[in-house]
C-alpha cells in the first residue's frame, strides 16, 4: 500500500518569508498527488493536485508544488507567506487503480508577524 511522509510536523515562519513544506511518498503503483489545507475550525479544501503533464503545479493562494518522480517527492512552496496562511497542510496520494487515498500526518504552518 502507499504511504505519505510529511517531514515536518510544525513550521514556524515570519510573514513575507518563503516557505517549503516537504512531502515524500511511497507506492508500488503510479499515484495522483494532492495538497489539502485545513484552516482553523474549517474543513479541508484542495490547494492543488498533480495528475499528469508538467511537474510544476500551481494552486490557489499563490502556492505551488513540484512533483519529482525520482525522489518520490511533492513539496509545497510559497515565495512569500501571509498571516492568513496559518493552517494545517496535508499531502495525499491516491493510486491510479483504486480509491484508497492516503494522507500524511500534516504540517502545521504558523506565520508570525
Amino acid at each position, binding site marked *: 500500500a502507499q504511504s505519505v511522509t510529511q517531514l515536518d510536523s510544525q513550521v514556524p515562519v515570519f510573514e513575507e518569508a518563503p516557505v517549503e513544506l516537504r512531502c515524500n511518498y511511497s507506492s508500488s503503483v503510479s499515484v495522483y498527488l494532492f495538497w489539502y489545507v485545513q484552516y482553523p475550525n474549517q474543513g479541508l479544501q484542495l490547494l492543488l493536485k498533480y495528475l499528469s503533464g508538467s511537474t510544476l503545479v500551481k494552486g490557489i493562494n499563490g502556492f505551488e508544488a513540484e512533483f519529482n518522480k525520482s525522489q518520490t517527492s511533492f513539496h509545497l512552496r510559497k515565495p512569500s507567506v501571509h498571516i492568513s496562511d496559518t493552517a494545517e497542510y496535508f499531502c495525499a496520494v491516491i493510486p491510479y487503480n*483504486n*480509491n484508497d487515498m492516503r494522507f500524511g500526518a500534516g504540517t502545521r504552518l504558523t506565520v508570525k508577524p
Partner: protein
Amino acid sequence: GAGVSQSPSNKVTEKGKDVELRCDPISGHTALYWYRQSLGQGLEFLIYFQGNSAPDKSGLPSDRFSAERTGGSVSTLTIQRTQQEDSAVYLCASSLVGTGKETQYFGPGTRLLVL
C-alpha cells in the same frame, strides 16, 4: 449549491454506547468517502462508496464500524460499543465520479468524544 454537510457537529458518548454519524454529500456526487482524523495524526481512510457498487471497506478498523449509503446519497457511519480510542474527528468527502483524480470535497466533520 450546498457543500458536504455532516451531523452532528459534536457528539459526546459513553464507552459502550452506539453512535451514528451522518453525511450529506454534494448533490450529484456519486462517490463518498469516510475518514478519521485523530489528534496529531493525518487522515485515515475508512470506507468508500461509488454509485451502486459494493463499498470498499478496507479501511474500517474493526467490525464495530459499519457504514451504509441509502439511495446513493446520504451515508451513515455507525460505531457500535464505542471505545475511548474511537474519539476523533470523522470526516466525510464526496466527489463527482470517483476516478481518483478528482477533487474530494470535505464536510466540516463530526467531533466524537467517548468518555
